[in-house]
C-alpha cells in the first residue's frame, strides 16, 4: 500500500477547497457558484477518504458516500432554482438577485 504521504492528499484537498471557496466568493454566475460549491464538497470528500486510508478506518469512506448523496440532492435543488430563474427571464447574476420580493 505504498503511495504518497497523507499530507499530500490533504494539501490537494485544501487547495481544491480554496479554489472552490474563492470561486463562490468572486464569481457572479449562479452556475459557476454551484460548480465551486461542488468543488468544496469534493475537497472535503478527498480529505475524508485520504484520512480513512491513513487510519485504516472505513467510517470516513462511508461518510464520503453520505456527503455525495447530500451533494447530489443539493445540486438538484440548486439547478432547479437556476432553471426556475431562467424561465422567468431573470438574470443569473447573483449580485442582481438581491431583492427579497420577486
Amino acid at each position, binding site marked *: 500500500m505504498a503511495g504518497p504521504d497523507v499530507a499530500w492528499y490533504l494539501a490537494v484537498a485544501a487547495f481544491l477547497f480554496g479554489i472552490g471557496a474563492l470561486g463562490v*466568493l468572486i464569481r457572479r454566475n449562479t452556475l459557476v457558484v454551484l460548480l465551486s460549491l461542488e468543488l468544496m464538497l469534493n475537497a472535503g470528500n478527498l480529505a475524508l477518504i485520504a484520512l480513512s486510508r491513513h487510519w485504516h478506518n472505513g467510517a470516513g469512506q462511508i461518510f464520503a458516500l453520505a456527503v455525495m448523496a447530500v451533494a447530489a440532492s443539493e445540486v438538484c435543488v440548486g439547478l432547479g432554482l437556476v432553471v426556475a430563474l431562467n424561465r422567468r427571464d431573470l438574470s443569473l447574476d447573483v449580485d442582481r438577485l438581491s431583492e427579497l420580493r420577486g
Partner: protein
Amino acid sequence: MTGGSWLCLLAPLGGTILITLCGTRIPRVAAGWIATTSCFVAFAGAIWAFFGVHDQHFRPGLQLCDASSGPCRGEITTAWTWLQSGNFHVGLQLLVDPLSSVMMLIVSGVGGLIVLYSIGYMDGDDEERRYFAYMAFFVFSMLLLVEGGNLLLLLVGWGLVGLSSYLLIGFWHERPSAVQAAKKAFVMNAFGDATMALAFFILIAHTSSLSFVSAFNVHLSSTAANLVALGLLGGAAAKSAQIPLQTWLPDAMEGPTPVSALIHAATMVTAGVYLIARTHPIFEQARTVELIAAGTGALTLLVAGLIALVQTDIKRVIAYSTMSQIGYMFLGAGVGAYANGMFHLMTHAFFKALLFMTAGLAIHALAGEQDIRRMRGLGRLMPFTKWCFLAGALALVGIPPFSGFFSKDSIVASAAALGTWYGWIFWVCGIAGALLTGLYTFRLWFLVFPGEPSPFVREHYHDHHGREGAWTMLLPVGILAVLATVGGWLQWSPRWTPFTDWLAPAAPTLQAAIPTNTQEYYTSAATVLAGVAGIVVAWAIYSERSMAIPAMPFWRRTLENKFWFDALYDRIFYAPAVWTAGLLRREFEEPVVLQTGPDLGEATLETGGLVRRIQTGLLRTYVLFLAVGAAGVVLAFLIAK
C-alpha cells in the same frame, strides 16, 4: 364540647359564604337574617362548649392536658396538621377552656344582638349584603382569635379581625374620611401584628413550638421572656388602642354605628386583654413588661378620659370612653388580676355596646346627626332610648347596682393590693379615671337627653312607624340594657366570686394582686364617690342651668387636639415619608426612571441603524462572512489546542 367549638367557629363563616354566593339573588333583608342566624347558631355552639367545659369539671377523669402547665381544664381538638417543618408542627386546632368559652359566649352573644340591630340600622343602605357578609366574617375571625388552639392560629384570627375592621370602617367607601380612617386603623394594627410575629419568632427559636402548652412550659431566659412579652404587648396595645398606638380608634368611628358597637367597643378592641390573660405565663416571666402594660393602661385611661371631656361627636365621646375602659382592663390584667380584667371586658361589652346602640338610635332618628351640641332634649321624644342610655351610663360610671360597679372596683382594688409605690399610683389613676368617667358620661347625658327639645331636634326628629326604631333595633337594646344592669351580679368580690373561680384554671389571679377585704371596701367607696362627684360636676356644668367654667384655653386646645398625638405622628412618620418620596421623585424618578425609557429607545434605533449596513442583500458578502467566521472558529480551535 369540641363539636360546639367547631359549630361556633364555622357557623358565621358559613353565613359569610352563603351571603357571598347568593349575591343579588336573595333580598337584602335576607342577608341580614342569614348573618344574624349564623351568629346565634354560633352562640348555641358556644353554650354547648361552655357546658362541656363546665361538666368536665365534675368528671376529672376526662382531663386531657397536662395539669402542670397551660390550660388544664378544657380540651384541644386538632382537625389536621396545618404546617410542618422539621420538628415544628402547627395544627389547625381549637382550644376550649374556661377562658375561651367565656370569650366565645361574649363574642357570639353580643355579636348576634348587634347584627340583629344592624338589620334595622342598615335598612335601605345600598350595599347591605356586603355589610352583613363582612359582619359575619368579623364574628368568624374574632371566634378564631379566641378559640385558636395555638399562638399561630391566634395570630391568624388577630390578622383577620384587623382585616374585617378595615373593611367595615371603610364600609362607606365613597367618603374619603372613612377610607382614610380605615387605612389608619389598618396600618397601626399592622404594626402590632408585626411585633407579635417577631415575638413568635423568638418563641419558636427558643421552644420550636407555638402551642399554648409547650410554649408556656419552657422557662425562657429573662431577655427572651422580656422581648417576647414586649412583642405581645405591642400587638395588644395596637389592637386595644392603648397609648402610644391609640389614635386610630376615634377615627374608626367613621364606620356604621353597629360596627363601632361590635368591633370598636365590645369585642375586637378588647382582644389585647384576652391576649394578656391567655399568654399570662410569659408575662409572669417578664413581670416588668407586665407592669408596663398596667402603666400603659393607667395612662391611657386618664388621657382618654380627659380627651372625652371636649369631644362633640357623640360616637367619639363613647370611643374615648372605650379606650379609657380598656385602660382599666389593661391595668387589671397587667397587675395580675386577669379574671378582673376579663370580668370588666364582659360587663364593658354589655354596657358599651348598649351605649353605642342607643347613640345609634339617636343618630338614626336624627337623620345622621352626631353633634351633641344640637341634640338637647332628645329624651322627651325618645324615652326608651333615654332610659336604656341611662342604664348604660350608670354601668359605665360604676354606680351600684349596675354592672360596671362590680367589675371596675375590683380592678382598682387589685392595684392597691400590690402595695408598692406604683400600685398606689395605679390606684390613684383608677380613682381619678372614675371621676373623669362620671364627668364625661354625664356631660353627654345632660347635653343630649333631659330638658325641652331644641329646635333642631324638633325639626329633624322622625320616628319609625310611631316607635323609636325598628323592633330589630329596640329588642337588642332592651336585652343589653338588662344585661348592663344585672350582668355584674355574677361576681361580688370578695364575698362571691364565681367568675374568678371559673377562670382560675386558665388564668389564675396572681397572689400579689388579691386585695384584702378592707382594700376592696375602701376602693369601692372611693370609686363610687369619685363617680358620683363626676356626675355632680357634670350636672352643675352641663344641665340647663349651666354654670360657667373657667376657660383655660391652653388646656382646652390641648384636649381638643388629643394631646397632639396625631400632630406628633404626622411630624415623625408622615412628613418625613412624604419628604423622602418627594425627594426621590425629584432626584431619582424624573431624571433617572422617566428618562431611561426614551433613552433606551433611541439607543436601540441607533444600534439598529449601524447594524443595518452589513445587511447588503448581496449573496457574496454573506458567504464572505460565513467563510471568515468559519476560518475564525477553526483558528480559535487551533489556538486553544
